[in-house]
């Protein structure tokens, strides 16, 4: 068998059943890479776009009436209205600030407690039970209690958001810490790392993926908590907009509000993906297909 035979194999175009061709395929492969990259971006936008098209169609075809599920076109008008009134411009910064401060508080506490409970048995013994209790509090039912305890200023709003975000952060951090490879921890201990330095140099970086999952979840929760928080003496904010529209028979604004939520959710998600990208450069990304 000569080299030229191998390079232009007469029959090898159809290799015997037991043989597999793993050669990189020049032209196709470059197109393939490009396709895979763009397919991702396209699908991420296409799927929601298709859902919206379906929704508009369902209105046009009369599957849902205007009142219960206004068509996307009506939602666009609602955005126009909110924008020209200046409601949107006022709501976003206010709400984002509230969500941000509440989230920062909740995440800090959740992270600290999660680390503590994850690292030290006594931490778990002390904090786990109270936190398990905290997370089952139905916040919707305790809004009046929050008013009683924290008044009607910003405090109850921020407390509520913070309280709602502590748990997801705690739980994921805790499990992340517990999931760190025992062998690597031992290595750190052997080289004299204990306590805080062991946590910051070995455990926290390695548990970061889990902590980021918690943060991602908590960020979503902080937005959701706005709806409750902004029932308390708020005159602007996305949660307030949604509540108000709900009480005034404006399903289009309710859905517009949900749209803002969804958008913020996606923004949060993109930010978290970026954060993960930068915070976890060491982590190989795998999928099986």
């Amino acid at each position, binding site marked *: 068998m000569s080299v030229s035979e*191998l*390079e232009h194999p007469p029959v090898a175009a159809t290799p015997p059943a*037991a*043989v*597999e061709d*793993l*050669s*990189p395929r020049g032209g196709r492969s470059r197109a393939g890479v490009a396709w895979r990259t763009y397919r991702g971006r396209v699908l991420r936008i296409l799927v929601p776009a298709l859902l919206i098209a379906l929704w508009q169609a369902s209105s046009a075809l009369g599957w849902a009436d205007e009142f219960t599920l206004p068509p996307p076109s009506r939602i666009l008008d609602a955005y126009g209205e909110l924008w020209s009134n200046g409601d949107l411009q006022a709501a976003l910064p206010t709400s984002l600030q509230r969500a941000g401060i509440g989230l920062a508080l909740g995440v800090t506490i959740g992270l600290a407690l999660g680390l503590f409970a994850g690292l030290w048995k006594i931490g778990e013994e002390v904090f786990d039970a109270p936190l398990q209790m905290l997370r089952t509090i139905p916040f919707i039912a305790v809004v009046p209690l929050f008013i009683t305890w924290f008044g009607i200023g910003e405090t109850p709003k921020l407390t509520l958001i913070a309280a709602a975000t502590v748990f997801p952060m705690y739980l994921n951090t805790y499990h992340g810490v517990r999931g760190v490879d025992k062998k690597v921890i031992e290595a750190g201990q052997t080289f004299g790392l204990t306590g805080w330095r062991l946590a910051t140099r070995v455990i926290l970086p390695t548990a970061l993926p889990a902590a980021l999952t918690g943060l991602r979840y908590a960020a979503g929760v902080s937005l959701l908590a706005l709806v409750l928080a902004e029932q308390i003496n708020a005159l602007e904010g996305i949660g307030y907009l949604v509540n108000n529209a709900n009480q005034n028979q404006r399903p289009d604004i309710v859905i517009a509000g949900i749209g803002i939520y969804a958008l913020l959710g996606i923004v949060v998600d993109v930010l978290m993906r970026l954060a993960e990208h930068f915070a976890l450069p060491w982590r190989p990304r795998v999928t099986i297909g």
Partner: protein
Amino acid sequence: MSPSAEAVVDIRGVRRVFGDRAVLNGVDLRLHQGDVVALLGPSGTGKTTLLRILAGLDAADDGRVLVPKARSVVFQEPRLVPARRVWRNVVLGSRHVRRDRSRAVRALTEVGLASHQNAWPVTLSGGEAQRVALARALATEPGLLLLDEPFAALDALTRIRMHDLVAELIGRHNPAVLLVTHDVDEAILLADRILILDGGTIGVDVTVDIEKPRQRTDGRFAELRALLLGRLGVGQATAAAP
């Protein structure tokens, strides 16, 4: 090597670049059924990278790669699934895991670990884990067997047993075998052909024509060892002397 038979592994001009370093830079290799080829080379020279490409776990950046469909690999690390007991790890790829339990136990018996069949991987010693990985590879009927330093964590006696085991498997299924090792003696004992990978290409390709069983006392053995160690940069005086 049987030149009449068709090559089952046929790679040509394989390149693999990490960052701006071409770890493999035009590697050609053909293996036939039953070939046992040892691959030597300094640490970090691309041996594992080449094996990964042959295993289909990594794609070459350039070149041509034809390999048998049925491949078995013993990785440089044991790579056991931590959540499955030892025996289930042995028949990991099997279609009927429960039915194949006896096969798993047989393979474990061969590597001397029948008593650990129900253990969790995390409780195994380094050498035990490596032997489970070996049992897993030997329990299959591959067309190509890729071994990445499979005996590194084994003591001398266990190592000899494993050599025999691998030889037996080769006799039984006649796969092509590519064995990465750092032990020159091991390479000479087991292989028909010895390659040295360095600087991104295969620099040395010698056929071992000492009849088996080979003896370390054999003059040709010592000669070949000296040759290979020389090419690996180890001076005679320091280590290569018999």
